[in-house]
């Protein structure tokens, strides 16, 4: 094969220019996390899949990837749930409605919804991993007939750090959602389960033949969740995982998000678990 035989025939593009977009709403979720509602110029649809991300930038501060938290079924605006951990996110926390941010994307390989349709959908979200999983959860809720059961396991460090508490309350009430939540350390007011997220998995009511699972959380969580899912007998083919890396460009050019031979911004961030097994650095 010659090197130039495999290249794209598309016209070269301006890949790094942001689209200036308006922040419509800013909602504090916890002490650290904020939910932003953002609108592209003219209310244009972002056209994303659950699991995809955008690059968000503030001039003079920087640009970083953030997963999209809203479902594509809710068009016209999109939501980003962002934790305050660095320079850019501190700056984002100062944003007020009407302010502008730069948006590039959506980027990456999201959840292959065709593989999820007609199946029982099991979502395992640890901490801030609920932010992208909320996109899938609301997609399933908005297209309820297209999916089987919706089972959600959510683990948080503490009850003060629980995200989307009003939505959680609604999922708990909804007879159509099998929702489980646990916290590592509960406050005196906490009446729910205490323990790491894997403690939720043995008790789940699963139909192994028709379940697909998507896992998203901190790096340390994946191995333990995989072990717990395996001991329940869930086949590897039913498991999808969303990985975090430093996707600086989002378009497969800058090299930062590379895991062995795979670029997370191109092949991921949502991977089918059987494909991840050849990526030694993945977990």
């Amino acid at each position, binding site marked *: *094969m010659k*090197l*130039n035989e*495999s*290249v*794209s025939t*598309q*016209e*070269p*593009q*301006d*890949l*790094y*220019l*942001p689209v*200036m977009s308006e922040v419509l709403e800013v909602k504090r979720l916890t002490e650290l996390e904020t939910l932003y509602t953002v609108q592209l110029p003219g209310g244009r649809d972002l056209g994303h899949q659950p699991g995809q991300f955008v690059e968000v*930038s503030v*001039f*003079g*501060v*920087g*640009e*970083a990837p953030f997963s999209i938290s809203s479902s594509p079924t809710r068009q016209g605006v999109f939501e980003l749930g962002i*934790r305050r*951990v*660095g320079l*850019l*996110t501190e700056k984002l926390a100062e944003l007020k409605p009407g302010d*502008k941010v*730069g948006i590039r994307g959506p980027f990456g390989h999201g959840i292959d919804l065709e593989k999820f349709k007609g199946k029982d959908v099991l979502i395992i979200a640890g901490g801030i991993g609920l932010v992208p999983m909320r996109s899938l959860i609301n997609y399933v809720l908005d297209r309820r007939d297209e999916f089987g059961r919706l089972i959600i396991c959510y683990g948080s460090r503490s009850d003060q750090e629980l995200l989307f508490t009003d939505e959680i309350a609604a999922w708990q009430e909804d007879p159509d959602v099998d929702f489980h939540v646990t916290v590592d350390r509960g406050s005196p007011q906490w009446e729910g389960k205490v323990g790491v997220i894997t403690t939720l998995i043995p008790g789940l009511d699963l139909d192994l033949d028709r379940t697909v699972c998507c896992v998203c959380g901190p*790096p340390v969580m994946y191995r333990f969740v995989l072990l717990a899912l395996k001991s329940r007998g869930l086949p590897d083919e039913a498991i999808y995982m969303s990985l*975090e*890396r*430093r996707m*600086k*460009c989002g*378009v*497969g*050019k*800058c*090299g*930062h998000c*590379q*895991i*062995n*031979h795979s670029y997370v911004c*191109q092949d991921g961030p949502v991977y089918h678990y059987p494909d991840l097994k050849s990526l*030694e*650095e993945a977990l």
Partner: protein
Amino acid sequence: MDLKFLASDRVEAFVSHLMQQKTVYAPQHTGKHSVALEKVDDPAAVILDYGRTMQSVKKFFLPPRDELLSFDLTDHSFTPAAVEPLDAILLGIHSYDRAAIDRLDYNFSQGHPEKNYLTRREGVVWVGVSFEPDEFHFSGSVGISPHETAGFDAFLTRVREGYLVEVLTDAGRELVSGFELPPAERPKPAPGHFHQHIFLPQAKLNEVMAASYNNEIWAEMAEKCVGCGSCNIVCPTCYCFNVEENVDITVTGGTRERIWDGCMLREFTEVAGGEVFRGGLAERQRHRVMRKFKYLSDKTGHPWCVGCGRCTAYCTAGISIVSIVNRCVSDFEERHTTAM
């Protein structure tokens, strides 16, 4: 092949002839021993007989600092950076550096073709020159001869009395037209011998590297490596970059620039919150070498190392990429012999 002859005492005149057509960039001394590809102002300053430049031609298409846009902090507007075609003659380029550009072309054309790089790539006329392999060159082991003419418009092969000139494309023909070059009186000589070799054909390297993931060599190299990233910065096929904001002293505006980055630096894989996905030097050495000999070659069928020897020549800790790969080869062969 129509072979012409350029006598040593006519090289300057030849460079002047090229300068009349387009801007010429060629190797020139920047110090007593260092040679760099710079714009030619004085045809006598061009050096066609050299070992290697510290930076390859990559710097013209992917500059070390590359403005992407400038922004105005008063109204949050921005202006895309103007990107111009290089539109120049690159003279005196070695075959491995031309091969490296094929690889960069691939990276910036596949998937989402990138305007910045591809615009700069336009209008280039390539004039190659043969090289005499020194103690670091090993491009022969990755299939690139010192006489390889692929990708060049014209190619100069060094002989004792001057250069044999091969005109390879229409652009090359246009370049030499009007400059009298007599037919060469002898055929192209055999290329010089390499002093550095990878002890296995390139086609088999993928298998060896795949089996070398857990080799002890990575930990051993981590003992020597200081993680400075020099190997990345001098590599002609390393293209990774970071993006930075630079705010003016007036704090009313600034620029967003991409700058070269290197996978040997610890911060390369660091994400917000402090997680570093390749924290150890062993993992980073492995990633660098695997990227050249496995990850990108699996994808494209071509090794991403072109055998220029720069990463070894400029390593601050004396690490040799040829030694690393040969150690993987010998350990692989030993295991297989033992198995039989």
